[in-house]
């Protein structure tokens, strides 16, 4: 795409350079000038219905006879101001555009619209989930009059309409901005929402016989500027100002949607999308938002164990070291593991060699933010040399080696062998070291159980389908009795190598090693991944045909051509 040409516009007497044709709200945001708005959303079509972004606009006047700009006595160009205020959201930046954002008329417009929006608003902020992150609250404070002249009875509307399995509508709070309607029709491609009735009695509703049940329905809650659309899961659970948010990555698929994990006192309350315009824009799937519930699952492993007896960490690690050193080891890694964990597992494999397998987890994606690969970090396994070819859905050859006794010990990360065709009998005939977060048949049979952490409890990085390395950070501490996976793996590596384990192993320190050993990462550091990730040179793996098809901001054909070209 050619670089957009820039034009000069004048805002409140100040000349600004902005990209030609850019939407005025976006252009001014880049210059730190806020134009308040409700209905406008940069990722949706323009509706222009809230009228909050009214500004005065004008263009230099030309003399009709000479076609020359008219110059005022003070040397400035004469500006023909529009007779009415214009909405900034439909105004595109062109050369000579003059804008007033704070004139008395503009202020009067803002105060008027704010007042109108609040006359039938229930003002139930004390019980509203949106309070604290509500544009009505913010703009009423910033641009409103500060008092109300409304003494009539307010309209009464339903307070808890079920729109779908995950979204509840509080109709009284709705300001009819239509963001949710446009999102469903334009992004989710599920044109299910609309308005019925007229005027101030307009009501958001679903198409008759339908529900808002697509897998992106909760994005409507995110983009709702007020507290009208609420997440049925999060509703009335927690005040948002008590929550802290930590950047994370969705582990649902190899898209690697950027997320925020919101927690208070070690408990996660919700997951929301984090804007990354190269990956997921401002969206994420509903299914990814529920993954935090696994943290408190009853099957969570929060203990070290040797031969089904809980023990201290040292004993479990020693036993694991013994098993590994006894030889005949096979490894089953995981594409759920972070790059750092896969890198350490590869160190372990190098120290105590054995065949390495990964299990393929594919399904049908939706072409948007759920790809065909259900793991977040398959490419990380290539990057760290764990894999050289695509994994298969089964491990029959490995099973055969166990059957024939070639492999006596299996080091398993996350996977459940019983789901891969290992019979009870076979599980009993092999010694298992299990590193994982949740109990399954494999962990129940394991000689050694090492309790790891979920993505929410640790820091690390994943490489998504675009070969973009993205960081996630610890949002909450792991349950008592667990330990960071990289600590466990680096301990094992050190014990197997019979050296002293570094006590300061961290993603940053591991990335120093990665940069030194992986050619594609030469010169990279942990910090250099930034907040929106960094795409690496994938030409070394261009010959591998991954399972992903087209999705938002991803086209496998384009990746291949870049890599080969």
């Amino acid at each position, binding site marked *: 795409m050619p670089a957009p040409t820039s034009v000069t516009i004048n805002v409140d007497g100040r000349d600004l350079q902005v990209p030609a044709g850019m939407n005025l709200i976006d252009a001014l945001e880049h210059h730190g000038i806020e134009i308040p708005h409700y209905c406008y959303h940069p990722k949706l079509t323009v*509706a*222009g*219905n809230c009228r909050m972004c009214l500004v005065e606009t004008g263009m230099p006047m030309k003399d009709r006879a000479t076609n020359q700009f008219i110059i005022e006595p003070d040397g400035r160009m004469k500006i023909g101001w529009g007779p009415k*205020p214009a909405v900034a959201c439909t105004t595109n930046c062109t050369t000579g555009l003059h804008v007033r954002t704070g004139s008395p008329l503009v202020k009067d417009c803002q105060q008027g619209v704010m007042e*109108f*929006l609040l006359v039938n608003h229930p003002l139930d902020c004390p019980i509203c989930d949106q309070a604290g992150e509500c544009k009505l609250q913010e703009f009423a404070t910033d641009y409103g009059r500060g008092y109300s002249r409304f003494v009539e009875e307010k309209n009464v509307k339903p307070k808890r309409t079920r729109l779908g399995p995950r979204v509840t509508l509080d109709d009284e709070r709705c300001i009819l901005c239509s963001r949710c309607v446009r999102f469903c029709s334009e992004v989710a491609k599920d044109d299910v929402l*609309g308005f019925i009735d007229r*005027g101030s009695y307009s009501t958001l509703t679903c198409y008759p016989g339908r529900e808002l049940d697509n897998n992106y329905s909760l994005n409507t809650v995110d983009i709702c500027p007020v507290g009208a659309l609420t997440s049925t899961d999060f509703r009335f659970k927690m005040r948002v100002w008590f929550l802290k948010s930590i950047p994370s990555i969705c582990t649902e698929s190899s898209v690697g949607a950027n997320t925020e994990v919101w927690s208070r006192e070690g408990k996660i309350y919700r997951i929301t999308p984090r804007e990354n315009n190269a990956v997921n824009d401002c969206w994420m799937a509903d299914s990814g938002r529920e993954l935090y519930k696994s943290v408190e699952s009853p099957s969570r492993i929060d203990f070290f164990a040797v031969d089904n007896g809980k023990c201290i960490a040292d004993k479990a690690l020693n036993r694991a070291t013994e098993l590994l050193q006894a030889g005949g080891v096979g490894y089953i890694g995981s594409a759920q593991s972070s790059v750092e964990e896969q890198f350490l597992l590869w160190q372990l494999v190098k120290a105590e060699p054995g065949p390495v397998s990964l299990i393929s987890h594919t399904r049908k994606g939706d072409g948007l933010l759920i790809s065909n690969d259900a793991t977040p970090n398959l490419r990380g396994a290539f990057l760290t040399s764990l894999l050289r070819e695509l994994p298969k859905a089964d491990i029959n050859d490995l099973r055969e080696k166990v059957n024939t006794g070639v492999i006596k010990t299996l080091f398993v990360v996350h996977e459940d062998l019983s789901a891969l065709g290992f019979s009870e009998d076979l599980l009993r005939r092999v010694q298992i070291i299990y590193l994982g977060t949740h109990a399954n048949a494999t962990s129940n049979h394991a000689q050694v159980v090492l309790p790891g952490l979920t993505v929410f409890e640790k820091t690390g990085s994943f490489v998504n389908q675009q070969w973009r390395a993205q960081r996630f950070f610890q949002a909450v501490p792991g349950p008592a009795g667990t330990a960071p996976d990289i600590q466990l793996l680096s301990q094992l590596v050190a014990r197997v190598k019979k050296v002293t384990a570094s006590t300061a192993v961290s993603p940053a320190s591991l990335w120093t090693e990665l940069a030194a050993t992986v050619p594609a990462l030469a010169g990279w550091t942990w910090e250099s991944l930034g907040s929106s990730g960094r795409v690496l040179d994938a030409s070394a793996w261009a010959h591998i045909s991954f399972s992903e098809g087209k999705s938002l901001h991803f086209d496998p054909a384009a990746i291949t051509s870049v890599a080969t070209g």
Partner: protein
Amino acid sequence: MAIVERRIIYRNIDQPWYTTDIACYQRYGGYEVLRKSFQRKPEELVQEVKDSGLKGRGGAGFPTGMKWSFLDYKSGKPIYLICNADESEPGTYKDRQIIYKDPHQLIEGVVLSAYAIKAKLAFIYIRGEMFGGARILEQAIEEARAQHFVGDNILGSGYSVDIIVHRGAGCYICGEETGLIESLEGKRAYPRIKPPYFPAVLGLYNCPTIVNNVETLCQVKHILDMGGKEFAKIGVPGDSGTHIWGISGHVVRPGYYEIESGKGTVRDLIYEFGGGPPPGRSFKAIIPGGVSMKILRVGEKFKVKLPDGSPGEWGVLDIPLDSGSFAQCGTSLGTSGMIMMDDTTDMVEALANLNAFYAHESCGQCTPCREGSLWLKKITTRVCNGGGRMEDIDLVKNIADQIAGRTICAHGEAAAWPCQSNVPKFRDEWEEKIRAQMQAREHADGQPAARKGIRLV
């Protein structure tokens, strides 16, 4: 000054011998203009309309020829013509007469205009409540089709256009041209944002579209009949042709009267045709055309520029019947559906009635109109029910000021203008009414009204 009707559009309407069938229409010269004009190039017809100086009759009074010249032919997209027959402005009933009593005149106007702008297809979007009119039009179209005035290869000219009659579903906002287009596309009639959705560029199905009023399209027929320059001689400069005045309200003879533009004054119209106020009453106020236009108070004086350029002064009854003169008096003749109010009218109740209408008809798309119109309704209803407060007077005016000019479509102005004109012009009546209410409340419980608040509805 004696005033006479000049019936051009309504020439045959209400004549006892006149029926709606095509044979009758043709007996009185019907479709002759079509035959004549199809010999000419479309561009010539457009020029005739431009020369005529015709202003649209839908209320806004935009020059028709200029509107047609905005059509985007370069896009290569099909052109559509839509006849706006969604006549629903209170006090306006001029188009209905044409549809019900002279449908072929409209059809001839539609086909001529479609030919002139090279439309691929024409629609008549008719108000849902006029189901009888829709049936009449459909039958008339079938008759015209049988004689090759509509449909494929009209009169052997090689030009084809069909007319589709589409009934609205009963909504005032469907008369707004972009709301109408949305409705015609099968969507909710939310008016579109202009820019970019100017119908002449991005109209129906995002194709260049012209939306014209019923009467406007009929005027086109007569323009092409007599020639644009000749037509321009009717009426006064700047407002050519005739206006069909519908008088309603407090007059002895309500009805519709077709009068040459500017020939005659409001006085002539309401006394000579309307028969003046009911016995024993006198006129208090006039809404010139369609209830959204700004109200005039009888007794007001306007400083104006007379046609010869000299300064002058008009009372309300002196205003000549053309659009320029009404504009000089701070209002507009709109759809020329004049509503008369005599001295028995409670102006607050009159405004409450209009506010209730606009609140009911606001589509709800944009904030100022949606919330403002209902708020205005609630205030004026409360004042009518005895709960008035002195501050309500300025509040009503101020809320209207916060609506006008800040909405997506002109419904905002329509809802605001009655308040913006009624309140300052009849402030004495407002104050008197509210003062009486406050006294009544004080008597009711011996408490100062101010302390009682407003729970009196």
